[in-house]
């Protein structure tokens, strides 16, 4: 299984790895508007939104061991919550809050039934996938005047156009331009990364990882795995909702395609390609895969779905641990001095196969 290959991935790196990532992020945050034009900046903005989405999936799957195949449900709910909120309020700050809270509430409800029902990982995958499909159908069926929330028509398959952009909190007239949106998206990505690093270093995060490693043992130590998984799931949903909010802002538009299976598959692929049990992996995975899709889509050489399918199958068969852990392991083989435990590694005991 994939998890057996994680081993050191999440505890490695110490403090300097994350600091380097944050510094690189800040350099990009400040530098990008100086070197690229409006079009490039918009491209980078959507990448940042998708990277946040990938972080959420990477957190709940790679660290929480929760197999959510329908993370797009939360992305979509966040996007719609923002659109509806922004169309009903003059200040969009409240809409941002809605975009985070609505998916969290939905995740709390769904997660309660799943985790307290103690269903297997595979069932969780199937249920979450099903939920995203049904949300897709549900929002698709909302065309017509009777489907509206306050001032916001839901618009069925066509979605909601002309969603008002973010503004400076407390000042509805100060709407963000392309540069402002970039700062917001990239800033949010950096903050989410720091937040998740902090959570993982906290006692809560350590228990979450311990539950992934051995649920029975964690339970015998007095931790309730159901509660920890539920909280992890809710955190992931909130972050996905934020990503959905930024995604909606990027196009000033939201439609049911955010709930689509392709969206859920894409985020799974980001995480799988980048590396389970890392935070930087999903970010890099998102950037790499989106780049591939853009190239393929621009050249019309290969259908994007076909490309995604091939990448997914290839990684499951050939590189199930993802790119970042493979590179890390490579480096460790080159520079062995620091971690005696990995170089003196004895054969891994076969207990896990029981």
């Amino acid at each position, binding site marked *: 299984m994939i998890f057996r290959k994680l081993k050191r991935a999440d505890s490695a790196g110490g403090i300097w790895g994350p600091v380097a990532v944050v510094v690189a992020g800040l350099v990009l945050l400040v530098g990008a508007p100086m070197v690229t034009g409006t079009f490039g900046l918009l491209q980078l903005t959507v990448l940042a939104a998708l990277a946040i989405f990938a972080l959420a999936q990477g957190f709940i799957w790679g660290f929480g061991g929760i197999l959510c195949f329908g993370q797009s449900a939360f992305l979509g709910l966040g996007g719609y919550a923002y659109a509806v909120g922004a169309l009903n309020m003059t200040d969009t700050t409240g809409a941002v809050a809605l975009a985070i809270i609505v998916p969290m509430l939905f995740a709390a409800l769904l997660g309660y039934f799943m985790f307290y029902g103690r269903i297997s990982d595979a069932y969780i995958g199937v249920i979450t996938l099903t939920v995203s499909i049904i949300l897709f159908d549900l929002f698709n069926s909302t065309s017509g005047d009777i489907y509206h929330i306050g001032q916001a028509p839901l618009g069925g398959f066509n979605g909601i156009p002309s969603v008002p952009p973010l503004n400076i909190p407390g000042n509805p007239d100060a709407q963000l331009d392309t540069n402002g949106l970039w700062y917001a998206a990239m800033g949010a990505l950096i903050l989410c990364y720091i937040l998740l690093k902090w959570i993982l270093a906290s006692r809560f995060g350590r228990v979450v990882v311990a539950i992934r490693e051995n649920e029975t043992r964690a339970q015998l130590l007095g931790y309730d795995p159901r509660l920890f998984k539920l909280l992890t799931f809710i955190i992931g949903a909130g972050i996905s909702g934020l990503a959905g909010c930024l995604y909606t802002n990027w196009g000033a538009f939201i439609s049911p395609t955010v709930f689509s299976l392709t969206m859920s598959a894409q985020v799974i692929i980001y995480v799988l390609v980048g590396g389970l049990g890392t935070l930087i992996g999903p970010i890099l995975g998102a950037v790499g895969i989106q780049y591939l899709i853009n190239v393929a889509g621009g050249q019309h050489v290969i259908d994007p*779905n076909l490309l995604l399918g091939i990448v997914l199958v290839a990684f499951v068969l050939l590189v199930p641990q993802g790119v970042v852990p493979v590179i890390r392991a490579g480096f460790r083989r080159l520079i062995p001095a620091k971690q005696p435990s990995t170089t003196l590694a004895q054969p891994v005991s076969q207990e896990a196969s029981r």
Partner: protein
Amino acid sequence: MDLYGLVGFNILVGIGTIALITVGLGVIYGMMKIINLAHGEFMMLGAYATYVANTHGINIWIAMLIIAPIFVGLVGLVVERCLIRFLYGRMIDTMLATWGLSLGLIGLMTSIFGNDPRGVPTPVGSFSIGHYAASLYGFVIVVVAILALAGFYAMLSLTRYGLIVRATMQNPNMAAALGVAPPTIYMATFALGAALAGLAGGVLAPISGVSPVMGAAFIAKAFITVLGGGAAIVTGTSLASGLFGFIDTFVSFKSTPVIGEVALLLAAVVMIRILPQGITGRFLRRSL
């Protein structure tokens, strides 16, 4: 009174439809504990097989009842040999790989046939229930669903293959000791499940239309029904189809099909809280 007749008929067809779209998924899950996320795309392939055969002048019944299942069964065979067999015992990886397959098949069929939906003619007309007209084709769906389930049940309980399959499900090593290679059984089972998906796709093609993304319309219901039914394929699929088909059709009749689907999901989510192992995980455990 006529209305009750119509609603009753529609509920029957709803149950038959759900049973038909679930049985292929249920066979693979029940016997191999693999959840095939490409199930909807196998159905889609069956629909395209029917469409292509029909446009080449082959009789529609032969196209949907014979060509579609055989073609998709062969595809299943190839998929099992080239992909699934490397992943036995890795349930999650199998799900991811079949998801990749699902995306790949959608992409492939889009590249070949394009996005626009194709039609397959409905081979039978309609009949009247009092003032209401109902499609005779509903009967076809119900009959095919019953035949598929009954045929599978007969095969499990009467044939040598069925005996071996039951033994392999219970204990792979024991079957191997009896001189039967489990890989052969798994291969045949996966092909059979794929063929049943192809059959469902072929039979439903006249109603749903044929397009690369049509699978997504079915899999939500199929997944819910398999989870709800539990490990016993025939009993579980039948009972869960009955329950969910009733809920789906009844709620759809009272509101819209989408709300029917939502009701289905709610019922399933509440059910996994009460019966995490599905209906046959709790009751009728020794059934097939």
